[in-house]
């Protein structure tokens, strides 16, 4: 059963990823990205990371992809890009060699090192009928105790990002840069 879930989710993930890279139309690429993100969420569920699966769907598929689509709509760049021309000579073969080499190195590292990450014993607290929120409890206990400083700094990061984006997106007429 777990194998069926893995195969289906892996097909979603890889199909979507290939779609992002190969589709000429940016809107189609964004839709393929949604497929990949849902496949990853399925894998999170099969690893009992229920909270992260929900966040994945809400934040990534819900917010980030919608933001991409808004920008595509705003800029009107939804016409297809001509993918048949190759602006820099030999760029694609070189990129494929580099990417393939990277994947080969990581797979070799995983295969040779797979004895080293033997299970530490004891399973993570996962949701049961008695405590359906066990995963969220474990996550919250870690975030709000050992990682509480990083959590608070994250709020500063979000504030800086929001203020920075507003400043950047404003048309500054006084400086003569706006149209």
């Amino acid at each position, binding site marked *: 059963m777990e194998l069926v879930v893995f195969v289906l989710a892996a097909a979603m993930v890889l199909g979507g*990823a290939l779609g992002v890279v190969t589709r000429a139309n940016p809107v189609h690429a964004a839709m393929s990205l949604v497929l990949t993100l849902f496949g990853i969420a399925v894998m999170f569920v099969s690893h009992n990371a229920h909270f992260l699966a929900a966040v994945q769907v809400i934040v990534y598929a819900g917010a980030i992809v919608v933001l991409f689509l808004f920008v595509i709509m705003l800029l009107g*760049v939804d016409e297809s*890009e001509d993918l048949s021309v190759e602006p820099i000579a030999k760029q694609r073969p070189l*990129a494929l060699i580099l990417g393939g080499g990277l994947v080969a190195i*990581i797979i070799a590292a995983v295969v040779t090192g797979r004895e080293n990450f033997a299970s530490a014993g004891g399973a993570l607290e996962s949701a049961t009928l008695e405590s359906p929120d066990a995963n969220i409890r474990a996550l919250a206990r870690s975030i709000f105790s050992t990682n509480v400083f990083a959590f608070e700094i994250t709020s500063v990061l979000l504030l800086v990002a929001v203020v920075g984006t507003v400043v950047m997106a404003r048309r500054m007429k006084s400086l003569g840069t706006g149209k």
Partner: protein
Amino acid sequence: MLSAVEPTTSWYLILSAVLFGIGTVGVLVRRNPLVMFMCIELMLNAVNLSFVALATQLSNINGQVAVFFVMVVAAAEVVVGLGIIVSIMRRRTDATADDLSGLKG
């Protein structure tokens, strides 16, 4: 019949490596800055997948905490990056990544 083979952590790590590689090739090949951004999201998701797989394997919740923070930072990064792309595209509507060489001055 199918229950004989269960996917192990290595399978998830290899899938994550392949996803990361596809994202890398996308960033190197595509010229539309928006699609390059989507490929960066693919790479971040590949890393998130390997974090969650290893958190389960090592019975350590901190792997999932790391994914949580990666998601927050990715959201902030997308907001800032798209802001930059919008302000570039406002000047030149058909800009590709190559045209940013004009920033050399």
